[in-house]
């Protein structure tokens, strides 16, 4: 496996239904190794030990919001360089743009299709690596 292969995915969402279906989508369909977290705080705790290639971060969560988690990740040396993909039930197009500007490598719209989600993640990852 080369350095550019996407292998480990950390998924952060406060909703258990979504965590379950995303794990299924990423593990069964995408073949990735997945770790799920129910909150931003949990993600900050797990990320250094799990060492994900990418973090999928829900935007609207109670407690720390997705952008706040991203900010905190960037503030810590061990997680500062981990690429982040936001997941959001976007209401307006400019929100997506704003999220990208925060430093995420991509945005996946919710609701997502479990059968194609891992493909979306891989595509965003590939674009990021080529850059």
């Amino acid at each position, binding site marked *: 496996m080369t350095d550019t292969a996407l292998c480990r995915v950390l998924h952060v969402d406060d*909703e258990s*239904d*979504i965590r*379950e*279906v995303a794990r*299924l989508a990423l593990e*069964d*369909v995408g073949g990735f190794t997945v770790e799920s977290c129910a909150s931003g705080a949990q993600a900050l705790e797990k990320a250094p030990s799990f060492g994900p290639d990418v973090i999928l971060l829900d935007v*609207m969560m*109670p407690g720390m919001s997705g952008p706040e988690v991203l900010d905190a990740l960037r503030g810590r040396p061990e997680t500062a360089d981990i690429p982040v993909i936001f*997941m*959001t*039930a976007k*209401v307006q197009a400019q929100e997506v743009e704003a999220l990208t500007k925060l430093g995420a490598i991509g945005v996946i719209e*919710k*609701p*997502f*299709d*479990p*059968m194609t989600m891992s493909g979306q993640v891989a595509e965003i990852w590939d674009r990021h690596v080529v850059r």
Partner: protein
Amino acid sequence: MLFGNARSTADKLKALGAAYGAALPGKLQELETAARALSGGGAFEELSGPLNEVRMLAHKIAGTAGTFGFQAITDQAREVEKSLLAAIKAEAPFTAEQAAGIERGIAALKALGSAAADTAAPARAAPEEAMPAESVVLLAPQGEATDALAGQIERCGYRVRRIGDAADTDTGPGGARVRAILVHADVPQGHKVCRRLREDFRRTFRANVPILFLSQSGDYRSRLQAVRAGASAFIAAPLDAATIVRSIEELSAATMFAPYRIVIVEDDDVLAGQCAEAFEGSGYAARIVKDPADLLDRLETFEAELIVMDLSLAVVNGVELAKLVWQHDHYRDIAILFLSPGPEFNARLLQVGIADEFFVTRPVDINALRAVAARYLADARFGRRGANRADLFPHLDRIAELKTTGDTPRRRSDARPPASTPPEGVPDDAPKVLVVDDDRHLVDAIAIKLSEHGLEPLKAFTGEQGFRVAWEESPDVIITDYDMPGGSGDYLLGRLKDAEETRDIPVMVLTAHTLDGQKDYALEREFIGRLGAVSYLAKPISLDALVAEIDRLRPVRSDGNR
């Protein structure tokens, strides 16, 4: 382990979807409970907390439901979220109307949620070999609600053949007898498709398949659509399979298969024929009663739902006839639609506070008649039975009185009334000139001048009245004022040009608009160019000039004389 027995990712997803669907009503209940804090509205500062909380919950549902296959819930939740977001951004007081809008949105979400939960519930296992011998065609928008409904109906023992939209016409009965066509109000052009389907079934299988009309709302518009679809039954939300199946069973009673039944009481053969043809063309059963004395006999053998009653019958006042029908116990629920003698009669009705929506004005616009008839049928079959009687019966005496006092001349196709008999000294075949002006003195003065000149004057004092007289009497020339209350010259010219019978009658416009006594050419262009008048005279007019102009305008008769 959750997926211990699952065979594939698809099965696992299905199981997750079912679990989510089953949990949906709970999630939506949570949303509704949170939204109660917004009820009635209030200052933004006080409500910003609840607004954000409800928005967050709606946002979560919007972002999640679609992943599990419940896209309609995502869409609806997104609508609710958008409204909340707008309110949050505005930072203005949250009004009671806004709160009510959110409540309605959440109620719609809950309805979708119940349907989703039904779908998610494990279906009662049906033995595969026992394929139902009877089916229904379901014409409804794609979505969870329809999926759920189809599933429920199938569990009641019918095969369901789904048609997503009007373009999808692959509707063969597939070996099972089609018991009903179910059409949902939200399918564009659904009424046309289901009528076409029914015709196909009728032709191919000699079967009269009833149409059941399904609607989320029981409002008037929906009931009207049902009539247009030719539906035999109307089912409003909640659209549950039990009600639908019960309705299908009830429709087996032969009488309910019958199309809408209309009796036309009209002694004018031409008009009666036109009405009957229009109704038959819409798939209704229509019977003409020419002699009012036959009406009750006819009703005994033909169970009418609607009577179209001319108020100007030659031998009896239509109002009296209506009273006779409605006083009869068996016929009190029949709707009666009156053909009014003209707009002026309607104006008199309005003056005494009787809504003229119950009257179709003569000359009868067949499309308007059909549309109004559909409204009556919607009430009679799917709405308040006897509503029309309840609305009108108390006013019948008043209507009869108005009818008698303001009796108007009958149509050209009937015997001509004394009102249009030429004044003394005017020959019977004198050319007729209609004068329309709200200034009665001017009309009288012109009439005298016309009579002296050997012309037969006809008078009208409003645009509406002018059109009616023109339609009834076919004058050789029409002279009309432009600015009149009760239908301007503009209106009159428009109607005259629209009607085949009056289109070619030359019209001269009189107007007080002048430029220092000179002709206003801009106005002339307006009257002659746009409105189709042939001439234009500025007031004050010279009666001699007027008569000369009339002579110029009168069409040349076949004998070469004017």
